[in-house]
């Protein structure tokens, strides 16, 4: 197992180099002058322009810039934002905890509701409840995230507050802190539900189909034949096997939620990394784009490693790092 983990970690290096080379190639190809973007509609004085170009090595060939980038990276420097005049490391150190905590909350919502709905649907297949849950998840999948977010904001932030004379409500936006009248935990509810909405529906569907498939397996019939209760068969035998694809999906989804929660972060004004990177692309703020992508790649690779290791827990037949018996 240890060997396997080391091998996987070493694989990070070529992946990392590949990603950064692709990004540098893209930044060379994509039109748009990052220095001009700093000033926007206003003209930037030529002297200022040249200073920014030189300070950021933008007058150098792209491969020289890449070498500078790698050199800085080895010194723990992710670069300096053109637009914000701040260290990229500082920016992400500030934002990553917010993205990670929101993604975790959303994953929790996804696991609790998604699995529950999937299991109930599978157990009560073709019943009215199954139909109702399937319909609900279909609606969630097809509902635009920003629209759902705005609906939740209006309902829980404005209407509920009005109906209860201010006694009951949820925060509309933001991550809390001293300026908020709400406890910080409440700030997670609406964005986490919104972020989880689509994935939750997918999780429920995967769970349902996997469970239905497993329930038709011979060993499940054997378990029933042994006289085990339905609950015992599902919990002890069926669920474990049905979980593997679900875990794979949830694991990948965590990485996606961490980096691509752009709409949720925008609607709820959540200070996460997704929107930061999205805006940086438009502004050609390459240090932020590079830093963000590198960070996400590392996180996703770590998550994938954890998922692969976790397979062994769910299916004892899966073992890593051991040679096949002759």
């Amino acid at each position, binding site marked *: 197992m240890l060997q396997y983990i080391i091998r996987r970690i070493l694989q990070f290096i070529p992946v990392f180099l590949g990603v950064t080379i692709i990004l540098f190639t893209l930044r060379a190809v994509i*039109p*748009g*002058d*990052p220095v*001009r*973007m*700093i*000033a*926007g*509609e*206003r*003209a*930037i*004085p*030529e*002297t*200022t322009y040249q*200073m*920014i170009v030189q*300070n*950021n090595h933008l007058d150098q060939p792209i491969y020289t810039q890449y070498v500078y980038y790698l050199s800085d990276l080895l010194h723990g420097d992710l670069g*300096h934002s*053109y*637009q*914000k*005049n701040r260290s990229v490391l500082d*920016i992400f150190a*500030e*934002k990553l905890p917010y993205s990670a905590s929101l993604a975790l909350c959303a994953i929790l919502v996804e696991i609790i509701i998604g699995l529950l709905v999937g299991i109930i649907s599978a157990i009560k297949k073709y019943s009215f409840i199954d139909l109702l849950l399937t319909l609900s998840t279909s609606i969630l999948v097809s509902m635009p995230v920003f629209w759902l977010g*705005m609906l939740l*904001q*209006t309902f829980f*932030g*404005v209407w509920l*507050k009005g109906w209860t004379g*201010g006694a009951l*409500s949820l*925060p*509309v*936006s*933001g*991550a809390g*802190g*001293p*300026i908020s*009248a709400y406890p910080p935990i409440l700030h997670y509810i609406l964005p986490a539900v919104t972020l989880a909405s689509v994935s939750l529906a997918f999780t429920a569907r995967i769970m349902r189909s996997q469970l239905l498939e497993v329930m038709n397996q011979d060993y499940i019939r054997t378990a029933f034949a042994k006289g085990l209760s339905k609950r015992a068969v599902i919990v002890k035998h069926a669920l474990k096997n049905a979980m593997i694809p679900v875990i794979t999906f949830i694991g990948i989804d965590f990485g996606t939620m961490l980096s691509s929660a752009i709409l949720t*972060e*925008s*609607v*709820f*004004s959540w*200070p996460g990394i997704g*929107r*930061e990177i999205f805006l940086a692309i*438009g*502004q*050609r703020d390459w240090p932020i784009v590079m830093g963000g992508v590198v960070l996400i790649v590392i996180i996703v690779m770590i998550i994938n490693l954890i998922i692969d290791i976790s397979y062994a827990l769910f299916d004892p037949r899966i073992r890593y790092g051991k040679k096949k018996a002759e």
Partner: protein
Amino acid sequence: MGKHEITRRNFVAGAAVAGAAAAGAGLLTGCQAGGSANTTTDGGGAASEKKTGGTFEYYINEPAYIDPYNLKESEGTMVSSCLFDSLLSYDYRTQQLVPAAAESYEASADATVFTFHLRRGAKFHNGDPVDATAFKRGWERICNPNISKAPSEISYHLAQIKGYKEMFEDKKATSLAGVKAVDALTLEVTLTAAYADFPYILSHPALGPVPAAAKDFDSFTEAPIGNGPFMIDDTWKHDQYIRLKRFEDYYDQKAYIDGIDFNIVAKVDTAYTEFQAGNLDFAMIPKGQIEAALAAYGESEDGYTSQPGKQTLLGPESSVYYLVINNTDPVMENQKLREAISYAVNRQAICTAIFQDTRVPADGLIPPGIKGYHAGAWAASYYDIEKAKQALAEAGFPNGEGLAPIKLSYNTGGDHESIMQMIQSDLHAIGIEAELEALEWARYLGALAEGKVQIGRLAWVADYPIMENFLYSLFYTNNGDNLSKYSNPEVDKQIMAARGVLDDDARIAAFQKVDELIQSTTPIVPIMFYKHNRVCSERVNDFYFSPNIIPDMVNTWLSA
């Protein structure tokens, strides 16, 4: 030279200061600090006691900077204007310069040397004295190209000062030769050429003083220490909030409110929902909700001041949206063609259909609110389809015959596409065929700078409330912001001459002549002036939001 008893806090009363010239003496005079007001007049004319206390919940988007070092956009300027006082301030209500950190100033007869007398006893938020050196330090910080990895983009405010070139451009000097702290309370500024509008430039919030603590650039940028009526509480929480609290040792009238929470909200719609939920005192109204806001919150009487029941602010701003035309383009160098385009655009239809009248048709380049504005300043800046057709015929293209399709370029996002589509339709009505070119923002800026745009769109927001800021910036030959590539030696000469006219009225008249000269050839097509689209909560009283998007937070008070 006369002295005028007034404070910047009671200028609502309408007293004027001598920012205007004492022409006979060749001197400009400021004014003396005085007492403070504690009563207000409500809409009915009755005086009522202002209440102290409470925190004002203010909506902004994430600022670029709140440090004067690079105060280049509205969001940061709103915050910084509460943290810092420049030498002077501009009161849009009386259209006069009023004292801020300086109680008076004088100008030399040739408008090249300005001497400012600072208020005694003023302090920074950390207790340091606000002296002439602090201003010199602040300005040199802006002009120091080596102080940070990103040189300030706003050093151009100080480009008229002697020694600017040597310090910022040539990097040979470490200080501004033209800025001299004569003594603790006297600051003398020498310019390279006559520039009578210079005091107006110094009203810009970026040109405040900084204490010695500003040496630590990174920490100062995150939590600036100023001399204004509010001080920062904690540091700037990016994309979340900036908290300010009242500065109790402020040299002038203290604020009524205890503090301001600048709530950084990513989307206007979200901020408005927060406002409707009662969590914000000030927000921007999303497009399409103006009528509902007016019905729910009432309209401000002057468009800038919010009182309970009259909370929707729709006053014109100091900014203009215009079609930038490449005057060197082989087709667009035809003056009559530009004129035809200007007459053909139905500005009112754009303002109504797209912006629900939260924009006002531009009848010239200079917006209302800027001294020197007069209605109908640009002859061709109104909708007249017959004149458009006539001008088109005079251009050599009767009914558009013989004219190849022109290209209307714009950046994607915002409402630019809708605007350009309406203009395309207007041009079609007189026989001009136009193709639309939508470019991503980065590509659009590049195309503009490289002169690849035949007709595009741009906006200009005034840095200072003076005509010169529009005319020089947009039309002086080879100036960076002159993206229409307009060049007229006579205009250049007249701009330079007008800069040296000390008397305010005479100088404005001189700039109006320049404006008249420019408009006679329609180098650009003004489309509309921006208007506020903001709203305050019912508990907000006496909140004034100026045409250049700066709030007066000192006189604002909260009912409950």
